[in-house]
């Protein structure tokens, strides 16, 4: 979900179209219109007209820029999308871009066009750069699948070559530097080389773009040449290229740039890309190119999903007003997405666009009417009963994080190297404090006790909740278990006090139990027991070991028990 910056006056200008007078909008109008693009106004600066907008749809990269937002709103206002001329007019002798053999194994695809007649403004340049960055970062997976280059057309002679060279075979002055470097050197020292060099790891030859005179354009997907590849305010002739590993994504990205520049008044001239190998679009590919595949669906499907009868005409009208090309026939529509979209995977994607185009407010909510019986799971129900009993015995309930540290969950409990100390641990640790799932409840209770020596005594606390225990017999390698932990802490806390609570609890849940002495490192020897029920260990009870209390910096005695609710709840 990218968040982008646009300028209000730029948006208004794009809504009016090149050369037309812009109509100022209020913020409310803008916020309303943003529904069409699943956008949310996150912030604004009334002095500069700056607007921060979050775009939700990760499948609509065309909307991650001012041009795209304006286009979607404009289409709705005008009722349809005018056809982009550059898609149908094939130039007599198109400019060419030749691809060198071997790139199919490195970075196979490229698409390019020129844009002339639009003088780049400050706002326009800011959008070009932001779009380039957002698309390469989020749609192009950090330039891995798609990266984009913009150049000053005047300095380029065609045909351009998408070449493959050894690291020391080509050299130029990259953006952000003032000396000539080889491609190999750029990977080693240029910030972008360091950041994105991993994409080309293991390649002994590297992608390189140069013009007919051998002048360097760029080292895709790393960095442009400073000489040719730095667009400035006032430039009125641009060359745009996109390279990558997925042909349809590469073409789509170029289509978005072409549409954006055309919307600003530029004339787009397609370029013919000539591959020495086969691609899904052939060996000679004109770009930009409309990849839209048509899809036919019954109006009934759409009406059923929306729960509303609309009729073929209304459906078609809504889709056309959202940028689709639509033909109708009896009770079905055949739809094609505009060139800047490729997100039509399923009929339901069309359904949503009908709803958005008409506006969600157009659909009257209807209550689902079918009868269903509500209820809790057996374990939740059991746990609720047990919680009520604990409350009745004067215990205060607490809630804790399930993620904790091995230090708290195991080491401070003296459980290193024991069966009780086995943990489900996190691999990609961000903070040691949140690096393992709790395997039992007592550390959660001790955490509260350790922080609460100012709260008046006695302390009687409990928590019923989930823990995770490693278990190699499970497909997941662990089991999620609901347990109950209870603890009493005060100057005279004693085994029999907590034992009474356990006894009462078992009485009221209607199950029998017995205690069997256990050597558990967290408890004082001779004052700890395994809780047995129907021959199974279902928990542990005892006086906390002084060393455990010391490690938690607790200075009153504490007694506690823990029982496995999952096991008890499953019994008939």
């Amino acid at each position: 979900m990218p968040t982008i910056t646009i300028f209000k006056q730029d948006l208004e200008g794009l809504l009016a179209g090149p050369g037309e007078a812009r109509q100022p909008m209020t913020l409310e109008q803008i916020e309303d219109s943003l529904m069409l693009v699943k956008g949310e106004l996150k912030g604004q600066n009334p002095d500069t007209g700056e607007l921060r907008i979050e775009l939700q749809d990760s499948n609509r990269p065309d909307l991650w820029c001012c041009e795209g937002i304006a286009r979607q709103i404009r289409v709705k206002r005008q009722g349809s999308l005018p056809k982009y001329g550059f898609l149908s007019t094939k130039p007599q002798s198109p400019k060419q871009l030749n691809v060198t053999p071997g790139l199919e194994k490195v970075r196979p695809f490229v698409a390019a066009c020129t844009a002339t007649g639009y003088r780049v403004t400050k706002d326009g340049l800011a959008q070009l750069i932001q779009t380039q960055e957002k698309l390469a970062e989020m749609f192009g997976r950090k330039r891995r699948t798609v990266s984009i280059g913009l150049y000053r057309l005047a300095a380029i002679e065609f045909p351009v070559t998408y070449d493959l060279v050894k690291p020391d075979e080509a050299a130029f002055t990259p953006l952000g530097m003032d000396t000539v470097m080889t491609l190999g050197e750029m990977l080693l020292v240029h910030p972008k080389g360091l950041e994105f060099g991993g994409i080309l790891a293991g390649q002994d030859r590297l992608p390189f773009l140069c013009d007919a005179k051998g002048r360097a354009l760029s080292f895709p997907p790393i960095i442009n040449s400073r000489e040719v590849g730095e667009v400035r305010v006032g430039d009125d002739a641009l060359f745009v290229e996109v390279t990558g590993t997925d042909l349809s994504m590469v073409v789509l990205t170029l289509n978005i740039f072409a549409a954006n520049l055309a919307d600003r008044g530029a004339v787009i001239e397609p370029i013919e890309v000539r591959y020495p190998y086969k691609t899904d679009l052939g060996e000679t590919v004109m770009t930009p190119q409309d990849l839209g595949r048509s899809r036919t669906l019954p109006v009934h499907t759409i009406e059923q999903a929306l729960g509303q009868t609309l009729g073929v005409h209304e459906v078609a009208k809504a889709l056309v007003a959202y940028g689709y090309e639509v033909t109708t026939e009896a009770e079905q529509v055949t739809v094609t997405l505009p060139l800047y979209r490729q997100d039509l995977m399923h009929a339901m994607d069309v359904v949503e666009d009908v709803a958005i185009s008409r506006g969600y407010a157009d659909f009257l909510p209807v209550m689902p009417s079918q009868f269903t019986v509500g209820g809790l799971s057996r374990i939740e129900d059991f746990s609720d009963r047990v919680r009520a009993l604990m409350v009745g015995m004067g215990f205060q309930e607490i809630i804790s994080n399930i993620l904790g540290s091995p230090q708290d969950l195991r080491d401070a409990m003296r459980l290193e190297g024991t069966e009780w100390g086995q943990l489900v641990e996190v691999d990609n640790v961000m903070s040691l404090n949140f690096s393992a799932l709790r395997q039992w409840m007592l550390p959660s209770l001790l955490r509260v006790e350790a922080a609460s020596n100012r709260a008046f005594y006695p302390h009687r606390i409990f928590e019923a909740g989930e823990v995770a225990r490693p278990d190699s017999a499970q497909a997941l390698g662990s089991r999620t278990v609901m347990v109950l932990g209870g603890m009493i802490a005060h100057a005279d806390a004693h085994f029999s006090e907590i034992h009474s609570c356990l006894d009462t609890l078992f009485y009221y849940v209607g199950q029998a139990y017995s205690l069997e002495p256990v050597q558990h490192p967290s408890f004082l020897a001779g004052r700890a027991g395994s809780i047995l029920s129907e021959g199974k260990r279902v928990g542990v009870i005892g006086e906390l070991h002084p060393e455990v209390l010391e490690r938690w910096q607790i200075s009153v005695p504490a007694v506690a028990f823990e029982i496995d609710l999952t096991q008890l709840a499953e019994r008939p």
Partner: protein
Amino acid sequence: MDISSLIDSLHPLEVKVLSTFVSNPSAVLQTEQLAQSSGLEPSQLSMAVEWLLAKSLLAVDTEVVTPMVSLTKVGEQYVEKHSPIERVLAAAREAATTGKRLTIQDIQSREGLEPAEVSGAIGRLKKEGALLIIQGGCLESTGRPSPTAEAIRGLLQQVHEMPREMQTFSDAQRQIIQDHAVKRGNAKEPFRIDDRVARSLKLSAAGMEAAQQLSKQGVLEEVSQLTTELLKDGSWRTKRFRKYTISLRAPRIAPGKKHPYREFLDTVKTKLVSMGFQEMRGPLVETEFWNMDALFMPQFHPARDIHDVYFVKEPKQATSIAEPFLSRVAQAHQDGGATGSTGWNYPFDVARARRLVLRSQGTAVSAHTLAAQPAVPGKYFSIARCFRYDQVDATHATDFFQVEGIVLGEDINFRTLLGLLNLFAREVAQAKEVKFLPAYFPFTEPSVEMHVRHPKLGWMELGGAGLFRSEVTLPLGVTVPVIAWGLGLDRMAMVALGIHDIRELFTDNLDLIRSTKGAL
């Protein structure tokens, strides 16, 4: 205060003192007489007398101040070990018989006396002519007696027996006593002179009335506590129960109670059950398959990054994933399979699907339910603990509850989805005004974000929902439309609980947990 409530407010000690006057209300009694007839300890008596004086029920008739002489601790020691003046004189006399030279230092060290004590004694003896200081600072006895030394011996003996009135001593003795009495700045003296106050007390007019009243109602013994014995033998009838000052602050207790946030979630749970939802549960550790693949999130989706999800260290992968779900989901990702979708068009990685993660979204629980032949029509919910790879701060918690669920049925469509959300708005947030906005979730289409006008909070986002994509439902074996919904309740909970930091929902501060009231 009228007389009967005045009597009710009297402490038992006060009643005892007043009662001694009952037989003779105009009597003037000495403190000693009062002590005798009331049978109270001196300390109790003096407390009761002070209270009654303060209440103006008792008045002082006469007050006689008598100076009394008694021994201090030092004085008691002198009785046994003799006073410094006696010891200095004795040492000088002994030196005279043996002919040894005696210096001041000798005396000091031999007798263990303080320099001030020695010099005081020598000064007095010299003045009385019993001692000379000769060349070299040596002391020499003159053989003459010291009246002071002799008088002190006598006085120590006399006062040692018991304190005596100052008047009973002669002028000369009084002088000596005064010279050797503790005064400010001079604590090491044998005598103490104290004023003994002898008071005679009588009833005030109000006191007489109270005493009369007391005698009239008969003096019931006052008790502070009703006991089993009093009830058993019926003797409570002859007792008066002391009245309490009930306006005092009550002592604190810590009741057993639910955690306020948990109570909030319980209320939500109850509401959902009352709306016909069945609870579902799932494991904390999930496969990427159920957490993401089954929800049609492509394996290259940015939210599946190492920076968004917690991965499990050991084991790293599940041993298996149930079929036919694995194959069908893989197919849906690759080319849509039988779902009517084009799919994501990439090679699905089964090893990746088996990777273990900490559940990052409650929707994983719904995915399991879809695969487990759910009821149609059916409504399900879960309040699932989820984990997000986030820096913890006031608005981000690393583990949190997600309230989410599904609704299956032949009648499910976009409008019934909105109807269901309306119901949530009314039941859960008590909101009458609702706004629906287009939204994006990888697993639903169409998708909705619901904003409601909360009675206290104003417009807020309450949740997100949508119809599950066919790419989600069909591979899991569900052929009817399904609503997927999720509610964001933490903000409501925080306001209800009066906290501003999401970390406080899981606070370790017992005082805060105890004192926070319930919510919703």
